[in-house]
């Protein structure tokens, strides 16, 4: 998927993560801050990158502010931000396809 316009998903509440995506030209540029960086930083990064790969996003500037989100929440927020940036978040989502 191609990031067409800036989009944001999620909140800064506990157990959530706020994900912002913007169009980029130079691969995946990830900026991550987390309240549990020392314990889970690597795993959060891996989950974000895996999700982007599944969605076939090749160029994006992505900012993740994590507040202790579970993996399933991180995935949901990244996907929602990407689908929003393409204007495709409202209907006919490929549940169980690239969203899984």
């Amino acid at each position, binding site marked *: 998927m191609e990031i067409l316009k800036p989009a944001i998903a999620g909140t800064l*509440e506990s*157990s959530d993560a706020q994900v912002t995506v913007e169009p980029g030209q130079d691969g995946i540029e990830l900026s991550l801050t987390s309240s549990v960086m020392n314990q889970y930083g690597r795993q959060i990064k891996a989950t974000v990158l895996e999700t982007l790969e599944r969605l076939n996003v090749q160029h994006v500037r992505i900012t993740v502010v994590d507040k202790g989100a579970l993996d399933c*929440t991180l995935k*949901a*927020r990244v996907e*929602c931000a990407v689908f*929003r940036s393409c204007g495709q978040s*409202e209907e006919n*989502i490929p*549940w169980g396809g690239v969203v899984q």
Partner: protein
Amino acid sequence: MIPRPKPERFRLRRTMMFMNAQKPGLIKDAYIYGCDSIMLDLEDAVAENQKDAARFSLYHALKTIDYGDTEVIVRINGLDTPHWREDIRVCVAGGVDGIRIAKCESAQDVHTVEKAVEEAEREFGAEVGRTLLMAALESPKGVLNAYEICSASERMFGVAISGGDFRKCMQTTPQHNGIDMLFARGQMLLAARASGIQCFDTVFTDLDDEEGFRAEVFQNKAMGFDGKSLINPKQIRFVHEVFAPTEKEVIQAEKIVRAIKENAEKGLGVFTVDGKMIDIAFLPGAERTLRLARACGMYEGDLV
């Protein structure tokens, strides 16, 4: 992925707790409170511009979190909104046990949802007929059409009334004696029993009014409801206590089931237990008491 077993149309549903599907902090550990069902909400709890985000959140929660024996139901947006079709797709793809139809007013509303559910079951390779339905009556028209709604589909397991919206339509407010909704509750119970489905009362929203809450739960039990919708985990325990059978009722039910089975073998249809006339008509009620007792940890026998 957590594959959920095929939903049971008739199971114990004393408590059904509402949770905002958009809030990860809530839905990740919803099952620990011990309610019989959780109701993940895509409708009123989710702001209009977060409906899409709530679906992504819901999908991954359903696929990742093991809710165990807790039934998982989702309240979808009304049929007068642009959201309900995608709500149904995500529910079926995620494998929910049941869907609650908000603002249901006619059998046609149930049929409309049923058709979309069946299409989604085919699209996502789920067993056709797997996903259960329940209706929420929120308007005078919904209450008047309760019977056609309750009997509209084989997927229907229950009906509930939504007090907030209904009272607004009726120009009334919650009353301690329940007079504001007396007729509506009665009409809905009649319709549910005539159709053989379950019936659930509305939420009690004033968390500071403990006495009012208790009075309403006692009245619900006395009127014959199967359970109640809740908004806070602290309400669960009391409803379970009130809806539990008494020890005397459990002993009586056990005697009745045993006697009916033994006498059936002897060819006897009607007989007495503790001086009361008993026949086969008492069996479903007695079995229901024993199932309820088992769920409440009061019965460990093998009659049900």
